[in-house]
């Protein structure tokens, strides 16, 4: 199996966000909102970090 780096980020973010959403909130609506927020931060953070690495590369 091969994955691109970005698709690996998306899968990692999806799975981790689902678990965080279920475990860190008590009501279903809040679980969904928190999971979506986590997913967005994972992806945005990863893209931002990759740009930072590109900018500081020797």
């Amino acid at each position, binding site marked *: *199996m091969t994955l691109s780096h970005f698709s690996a980020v998306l899968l990692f973010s999806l799975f981790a966000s689902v678990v965080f959403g*279920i475990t860190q909130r008590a009501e279903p609506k809040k679980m969904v909102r928190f999971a979506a927020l986590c997913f967005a931060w994972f992806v945005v953070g990863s893209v931002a970090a990759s740009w930072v690495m590109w900018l500081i590369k020797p």
Partner: protein
Amino acid sequence: MSAAAGGKTGNGDVAASGASPLMVLLAGWLVPGAGHALLGKWVRAMLLMASIVGMFAIGIALQGKVYTPNTGEPLDMLGFAGDLGSGLLYFLARLLGWGQAPVLVAVADYGTKFVVVAGLLNIVAAVDAHSLASGRKQS
């Protein structure tokens, strides 16, 4: 151990299930989502199982490494602790020899991280199920 012995029981579903918090914790660790399933929270159990087993399976499919105990390397020991969080999945992987090939490509290193994080997420899920069973988390 009764549910009341593990703390106050503030959830009707939990009280009805009759499962003790320790049993829920152990079940949740051994089989991802089983702790929530014991408490009758089937949707959460299925989502947790799909996420954790999916992450573990993708890690193995990416040729990620499954850590073994007693290598003497501190980072390997931490990896082993993370992997062990997957419960029966870890023992199955060891039994079938999954994740024993050397990591040669970057994507395989991602696989190693997927396997470790699947174990850590399973611990989080099992502790959440324990909190529900003991009444520390209301619903």
